[in-house]
């Protein structure tokens, strides 16, 4: 069963593959023991900010936004890179995966970033991963951008070398790399400069809210990539809906703009967990 959606870089409608496709893990890049990039065969294209569901048979299936997709999927030569951090049972099992193993993926799901000239990319923690793919896509389209990337420590900063070759500044909570303190600290100054016409952000929800606020202050359009617990990924189960309008993070999101966030009342609250309850246990 497939839905027609538009791939931004192929120009033609792309079918969503809603049943898992077995793909080989071609390579595993170890950032550190609990932070790796998995290079997978690409049976379909994925746009920056869209996500796939990654199935580890016998374990579970979870959403991931690729950190890079090479576009030659029609030649069966494309690759999808997924960068993940071990935070729980699934991602721990993922860390144990080796090249040659087969996993299942389906997608592409949801709405990604739209590619705008003069974008400011703001990434925090694992949120840097999807921004790397976005940056790559902006590059290929000759669209200028700047990136501000933050993480807890230097070890958590992803794709530093890669971003350094572009235009990026770095932030760490502990000052072990780049500027010390949150990535959002100089946001107002940057936006004030008038050189940005769009902001794309991915990271912890408090960071996204800070970005949102700053963009609103400076009347700059924003695109924020959210995370919510997902069960179906295809807009059916209601698990990922945001309070207020019921907007589905898996379908209308994960990248949401001011228009779609209007009326949403749950930003910054603990997320709903697997039961659907919004508990203090749910992380932001």
């Amino acid at each position, binding site marked *: 069963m497939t839905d027609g959606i538009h791939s931004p870089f192929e120009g033609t409608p792309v079918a969503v593959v809603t049943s898992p496709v077995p793909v080989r893990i071609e390579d595993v890049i170890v950032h550190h023991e609990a932070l790796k990039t998995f290079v997978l065969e690409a049976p379909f294209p994925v746009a920056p900010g869209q996500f796939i569901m990654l199935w580890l048979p016998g374990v579970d299936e979870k959403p991931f936004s690729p950190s890079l997709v090479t576009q030659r999927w029609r030649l069966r030569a494309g690759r999808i890179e997924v960068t993940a951090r071990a935070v729980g049972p699934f991602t721990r099992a993922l860390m144990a995966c080796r090249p040659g193993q087969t996993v299942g993926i389906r997608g592409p799901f949801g709405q990604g970033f739209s590619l705008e000239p003069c974008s400011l990319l703001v990434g925090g923690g694992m949120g840097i991963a999807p921004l790397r793919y976005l940056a790559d896509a902006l590059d290929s389209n000759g669209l200028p951008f700047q990136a501000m990337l933050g993480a807890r420590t230097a070890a958590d900063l992803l794709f530093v070398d890669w971003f350094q070759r572009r235009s990026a500044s770095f932030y760490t909570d502990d000052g072990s790399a780049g500027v010390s303190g949150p990535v959002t600290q100089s946001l107002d100054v940057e936006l004030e400069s008038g050189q940005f016409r769009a902001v794309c952000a991915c990271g912890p929800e408090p960071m996204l809210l800070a970005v949102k606020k700053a963009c609103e202050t400076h009347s700059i359009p924003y695109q924020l990539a959210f995370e919510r617990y997902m069960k179906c990924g295809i807009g059916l189960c209601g698990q990922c809906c945001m309070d207020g309008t019921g907007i589905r993070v898996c379908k*209308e999101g994960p990248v949401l*703009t001011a228009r779609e966030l209007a009326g949403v009342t749950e930003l910054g609250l603990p997320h709903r967990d697997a039961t659907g309850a919004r508990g203090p246990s749910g992380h932001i």
Partner: protein
Amino acid sequence: MSRGTLLPKSGHHDRRLEVSIAGIPLRNPTVLASGILGMSASSAGLAVALGAGAVTFKSCGLEPRKGHPCPAVVPFEHGLLNAVGLSNPGAEQMAREIADFRQRFQIPVFASIFGKTVAEFGQVAEIISKARPHLIEVNVSCPNVESELGTPFGLDGAVTAEITRVVKRASEGIPVAIKLSPQAHGIGRIARACQDAGADAITAINTVGPGMVIDPVLRRPILSNRVGGVSGGAVLPIAVRCVYEIASQVTIPIIGTGGVSRADHALQLILAGATGIGIGTGLHEAGDGVFTDVCQGLSDYLDRNGLDNLDKLRGAAHD
């Protein structure tokens, strides 16, 4: 990038489509089926914006349940398999969501409940009744939690009737619908037993099977639960048959559910005897416009046939 156009869809307004289920007036016969979108006041509200005539919330039990790991929902060529495993935040939390929905939206809301024992159905009904849903749907037929909860209650007429009585007692005058399984042999007789036990409506059908999809390369079942209930286009003829059988045995209204993604599907269920039209998988198969499109198609049919409402069509396939 073409962003999914979001709400509000204008909906479809045609007073000829108004129906009444157990005394509850619906603006049109479409009902969001349980387990689709209805996790929270807001997610169910999405279906209001999309044009549903009523919404059913996800089935809830006494305790919160995480349900099965993913993949829990897998499409196949002709429909969908699901083994969500009745994940739900528990009746207390659901009651709050339903109360919130009642405050914020004008269209009827149906709660859906399940229990691990006959008595537990009563307990859950009592909790959920506090939120004053317009109707309580009793899920005696979920195939996904069998190993844990034993044989589905819905296959046994006497047990189902007993559950009906227990829920009726606990639900403080709120109308009660019993949701039946197509796996039941003699579904008409079971529906009759529910009516005799005081049920105000019947919902038919829950998912079919269960079924299994195996990945030929990975050589294992795709659903984490291995098996899951089949819904969507594949099950429409079974839903039509069940509604037809039930309609020949009961006088209470039927919410015909299963495989509807177009108006001609809904018409088949209405002609078989349905008053309400449950829509779940249709949201995936036909997209967000499904409620509006089904209603538009029903209006067109009324136009073509010079009819003022759906009454003459209901059960018209019986001779």
